């Protein structure tokens, strides 16, 4: 027998510990003790025992399979790299719970972005009955068995030494793609922390670039890919296929179209609005600013102004005022623009948005890029008896939840300036108005992902708004409509693009808008971008 054999000290100290100190128990008590151990015993090496320990969580087949695979084939060290929206947190919770039920994990550390600590703890508690303590001011490293903390806190002295002194049975890293670079403090910390089992969660599709995975895998299984030199050689000689094969030993990546979940549809509607003559006049005069003399502002500002003017005069006013105060705008120009603003009575886009809202029985989530627009719309909708709640990324988690609750129970509309980050789930609503379109398609996808996710029962109606004869029309008509990104099943995007590419796109569009001298030039450039994306998606998604 290769296993080491341990007898409990009771075998040796029978007389002292058992027969003398303990009270004599009744027959019933004797049986209850025996039965308690039967309840607690682990009947087999394999299988998911924890399933009977959790109820009230609807598990999808791919989540159970993932947990089984990590436990039985990967021996509890794995990268969970599902596409967005498939429930990586659930998978991690399942695996942690299973190890706890089996008595293999007592002490666990969950390292997540600071903004998500509370939510992780809450989810572990409510879904898996795992009492998890959040590391805030009071030190919980030693006293709590399961701790949720941000890596930025944990790696700082004096926390650092305490944490590195603990023997963790399991460490979970959320957003693990941030641990790609071995030269960072975070990476070093992740390497040093003592961990028996380890899960790394990442949504970024790194699988297609195994080189990026080298350091991540090194944290899980040091030496699996050899030294970096050997790895590069292997990569050159055997190619990507061979690497992928190795990577699959430590990584699970579920794709939406491979899961058995039936997703509801996305119905995308382009809504074009025409400005009133006054609005058009204001927009045109802003457009002329950049070509007229006497201003000292950057092309970027002028693009910003034009985008704001498409949203609301309130949004544009803020920027204009700012420019005026900074002396980037001559007084007479400022005053004449101000007069134009005062003459505008109607916001055509807001009118159209109101119409959409009034024509649906559904609750509506409206996204705008600007806070002034957010405020304005709240006021505007209220004039028509429509209650709305604001939502901003900067809200604290408790306030976000509060707003989410009011929206669910009382308000017809939620007006959000940001997708609100992970964790805000709005699947009780199925209508989105993209009042302003972000130029980063990843952000558009994130917005939609808040509603179109596991648990959404209805088809999702997506209204993309754009004002004719403005830069908005270009972006919607030439780009978003063409690539039809959002028509497909939820978030095909993240298989095509990673977040870096999304930001690059935004920059490209901005530059196109500010530097192009003609409509034709804009069209050519955006076509070029579209072609680029197609190639990219062909390579990656294909």
């Amino acid at each position: 027998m290769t296993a080491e054999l341990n007898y409990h000290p009771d075998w040796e100290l029978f007389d002292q510990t058992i027969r003398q100190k303990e009270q004599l128990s009744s027959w019933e008590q004797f049986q209850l003790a025996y039965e308690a151990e039967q309840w607690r015993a682990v009947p087999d090496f394999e299988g998911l025992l924890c399933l009977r320990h959790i109820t009230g969580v609807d598990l999808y087949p791919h989540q159970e399979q993932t947990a089984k695979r990590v436990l039985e084939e990967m021996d509890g060290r794995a990268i969970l790299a599902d596409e967005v929206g498939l429930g990586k947190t659930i998978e991690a919770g399942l695996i942690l719970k299973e190890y706890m039920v089996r008595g293999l994990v007592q002490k666990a550390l969950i390292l997540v972005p600071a903004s998500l600590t509370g939510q992780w703890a809450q989810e572990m508690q409510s879904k898996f009955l795992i009492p998890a303590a959040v590391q805030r001011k009071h030190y919980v490293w030693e006293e709590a068995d399961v701790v949720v903390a941000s890596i930025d806190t944990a790696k700082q002295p004096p926390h650092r030494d305490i944490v590195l002194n603990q023997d963790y049975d399991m460490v979970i890293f959320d957003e693990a793609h941030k641990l790609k670079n071995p030269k960072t403090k975070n990476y070093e910390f992740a390497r040093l922390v003592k961990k028996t089992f380890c899960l790394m969660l990442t949504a970024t599709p790194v699988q297609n670039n195994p080189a990026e995975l080298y350091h991540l895998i090194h944290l899980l299984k040091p030496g699996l890919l050899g030294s970096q030199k050997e790895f590069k050689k292997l990569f050159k000689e055997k190619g990507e296929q061979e690497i992928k094969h190795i990577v699959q030993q430590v990584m699970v990546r579920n794709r939406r179209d491979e899961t058995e979940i039936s997703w509801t549809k996305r119905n995308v509607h382009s809504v074009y609005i025409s400005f009133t003559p006054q609005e058009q006049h204001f927009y045109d005069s802003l457009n002329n600013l950049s070509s007229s003399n006497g201003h000292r502002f950057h092309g970027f500002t002028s693009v910003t102004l034009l985008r704001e003017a498409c949203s609301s005069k309130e949004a544009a006013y803020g920027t204009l005022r700012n420019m005026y105060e900074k002396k980037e705008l001559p007084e007479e120009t400022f005053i004449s623009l101000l007069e134009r603003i005062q003459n505008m009575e109607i916001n055509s886009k807001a009118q159209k948005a109101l119409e959409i809202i009034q024509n649906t029985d559904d609750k509506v989530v409206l996204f705008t890029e600007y806070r002034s627009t957010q405020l304005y719309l709240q006021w505007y909708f209220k004039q028509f008896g429509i209650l709305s709640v604001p939502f901003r990324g900067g809200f604290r988690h408790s306030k976000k939840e509060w707003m989410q609750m009011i929206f669910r129970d009382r308000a017809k509309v939620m007006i959000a300036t940001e997708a609100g980050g992970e964790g805000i789930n709005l699947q009780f609503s199925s209508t989105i108005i993209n009042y302003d379109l972000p130029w980063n398609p990843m952000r558009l996808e994130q917005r939609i992902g808040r509603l179109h996710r596991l648990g959404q029962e209805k088809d999702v109606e997506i209204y993309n708004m754009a004002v004719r004869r403005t830069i908005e029309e270009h972006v919607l008509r030439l780009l978003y409509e063409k690539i039809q990104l959002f028509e497909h099943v939820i978030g095909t995007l993240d298989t095509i693009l990673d977040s870096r590419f999304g930001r690059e796109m935004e920059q490209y569009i901005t530059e196109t808008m500010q530097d192009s001298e003609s409509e034709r030039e804009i069209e050519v450039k955006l076509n070029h971008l579209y072609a680029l994306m197609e190639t990219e998606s062909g390579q990656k998604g294909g």
Partner: protein
Amino acid sequence: MADELLQYIHRYFETNGALIQHCSNNSIQIKLTEALDRELMNRPFYWHYVKKTGGTPEPMTLTFFTEQAEDQAKKGEWLHVGTPRLHQIFESARNKGIWSLLYEHHEPKQTPAPLYPWLVVNVKYSFVSHQRKDKILSYGLQLIHGQLVHHMMDHLRPLQLEPIIADHSFPMASLIQVESGLLRIKNEAQRFVDDHPDDWAEKAEKKMLQELALLHTYSQAVSAPTEDYEKEKNDIQNRYQPSVHVDIINSGLFYLSHSSL
């Protein structure tokens, strides 16, 4: 399963002196005793305060439901195998049932009737590596002629066992001392472990050696510092090192009418 749990905690609270105030198919309400309140409710300040001020102690009342309450107004705890409360109760039950001295009450054919001494030991084996499996076995050893019986709890279950001997019975003296009896059972446990298939341990060890080899090769190739190497080695060993743990769940001296089973 929920019903079994409900029965279980019903028995647990009843036998430990709590008052069952209400019990139905899917719920139970229990008025705790002071001892149970102190043990389960974790409110030392309350008890300190009551004792200091000489107030009337008021142990808490617990309510359990076997189904998660849809009706939020229902006050009570959800009785479920995964809840910390249930594990607290299991732990408490275990502590209250460690050692027993019991006599069988039966209708003897002739009196006075002899009762034979049996040492009962319930053992939990845990096979642990990166996975885990437990096995519970119940042994009984007759302390006069040394018969060793398996599934002892099953033999005991139908009997009426009481802490005080019946008038018409008398206990036979043991020839085998409890300590040496325990040793015999330990040898039996050793035999069980030896005979138990160990493919699981070999598999775990093989995996461990593979990972250690990878780590070793890597560390040599990049001349990694010894402490880094040792740390990773430790992590790997912690995960895979196979071991068997043999624990005594509980034990007792039982005087039974049967000389052998």
